[in-house]
C-alpha cells in the first residue's frame, strides 16, 4: 500500500492504493470515473486511454502508484459545467459514435493530439487513433470529427 497524490481532471486527489493496482482500476473503482474502459487489458485496444501529463497512455498498462504527482485527464474532464467540449460535440455531429465503447479512449487520444497541434495532418490524426480499435462505426467519421474539432478550435471558439 502506498499513498499517492495526483490531479484528476483538475481535482486534487489523495489515496492509499495497493502497489499492484493499475491506474485504470484506480480511476474506475476508486474514483468511479468509468469512462475509461478495460477492453483487452494488454494495451492493444485503446479503450482505457487517458492522458497523463498531457500524453495519451494505456491506463491498463500503468500502475496507480506510477501516477503519483501526475496530472491525469479522462473523458469525464472534457465537459465543463455540464457542457460538452468541442471535441465531444464534433464526435456527435459527425456520427462518430455507435456502440460507444471505444469513444472515451478515442476522444482522449484525439485530445492528446490536439494538445500538440490544432492543425494536424490526416496522417497525424490516423496515427493518433491507430491504437484505438473501433469495431462498429469505422474510422472515417472519427477522423472527420477530429478534423472538424481541430478546425473549430483553431478558429478560436470553445475548448
Amino acid at each position, binding site marked *: 500500500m502506498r499513498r499517492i497524490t495526483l490531479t484528476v481532471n483538475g481535482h486534487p486527489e489523495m489515496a492509499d492504493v495497493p502497489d499492484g493496482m*493499475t491506474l485504470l482500476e484506480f480511476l474506475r473503482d476508486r474514483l468511479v470515473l468509468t469512462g475509461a474502459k478495460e477492453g483487452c487489458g494488454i494495451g*492493444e485496444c485503446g479503450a482505457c486511454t487517458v492522458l497523463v501529463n498531457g500524453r495519451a497512455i494505456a491506463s491498463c498498462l500503468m500502475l496507480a502508484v506510477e501516477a503519483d504527482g501526475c496530472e491525469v485527464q479522462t473523458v469525464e474532464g472534457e465537459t465543463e459545467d455540464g457542457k460538452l467540449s468541442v471535441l465531444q460535440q464534433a464526435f456527435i455531429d459527425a456520427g462518430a459514435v455507435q456502440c460507444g465503447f471505444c469513444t472515451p479512449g478515442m476522444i482522449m487520444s484525439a485530445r492528446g493530439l490536439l494538445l500538440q497541434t490544432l492543425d494536424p495532418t490526416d496522417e497525424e490524426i490516423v*496515427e493518433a487513433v491507430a*491504437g484505438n480499435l473501433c469495431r462498429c462505426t469505422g474510422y472515417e467519421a472519427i477522423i472527420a470529427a477530429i478534423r472538424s474539432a481541430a478546425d473549430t478550435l483553431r478558429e478560436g471558439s470553445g475548448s
Partner: protein
Amino acid sequence: MLGSFEYRDPRTIAEACRLLAGEDSACLLAGGTDLFIELRAGWQNPELLIDIKGIDALGELRTEEDGTLSIGAAVPLDAIARSPVASGPWVALREAALSIGTQQLRHRATLAGNLCNGSPAADTAPVLLTLGAYVMAASLETSRQIDLANFFTGVKRTALRNDEMICEVRIPPQPPGLRTAFLKQQRVRGHDLAVVNVAGALDPSSGDLRVAIGSCSPTPILLPSINAAGVSPTALSALAIESALDHVSPIDDVRASAGYRKAVLETLIDRLIARLVSPEGGA
C-alpha cells in the same frame, strides 16, 4: 491488480542496483508495456518491482562531445520517434521507434526495454546492430559495456545478469554522410510485431554496408559487413540477399511460415538496398 509485488522507485542507480541485488525475483520497470502483460498473464511473479523512471540520469538523451549518442534507459520511444534530427543514424532509429506499438505504448515504452525484452522481433535491435551500438550495464559491484552484437543470447534471453540493469544505450560516432533505413513487414498496418524487420547502414565514402535482420532467427542478427564500393545496386542487393539467407533460420509461427518469412526477407532487403543507394539516402 497486476500482482502482489512491492513497488519501489529509487532516485539513484546505486539504490536501484542495491534493491535489485537484494531480491532474486525483482523486476525492473521502465515503460511496463511488456512487463505488465507478463505479470497479468502470470508468467512472472516478482516480489519487487523497481521503477527506474525516477532516476534523473536515465531520462537523458544526449549527444556527447565525441559524437556518441547516449539514450538513457528511461527515455521513451516517443522521444526517439520525434527526434528533431532526421539524418544519418536517426533516419532508421526514428523509423524503428515509430513502428513499435501505438502512441499510447510509445509514450511509455523505452529503447532499453525493447532490448531487455529479448524478443527476436525487437524493432530497434536491427538498427542498433548496424550502428555498432552497445549498452552500459550496472550492478552493485560492477559497470560494464556489452556490445549489442553479444547482448542477445536466445529467445527472451540476454547477456544481462539478474543483478544488472541497463543504464544507457550508446551509439558510437558514425561516419559523416551515413545512410540508414529500417523496414518492417507486419500482418496489418498498425501495431503488430514484425513478420520480418531489416535495417541497413551504408557509408557512401568507404562503401561499408551493414545489414541486420529481426524475426528470422532466435535473436536479431547482424550480417557480416559487405563491401559495396563499385558494386551496382542490383548486384549489391543480390549479395545482401544471399548473405541473409545463409544466416537466418526462420520458423513457422502464428504470424508467418518460415517460407513466407524468407520470401519477405528477400523483398525487404531489395527495398532496403534501393533506399540506401538512392541519392536521397533513405531520408
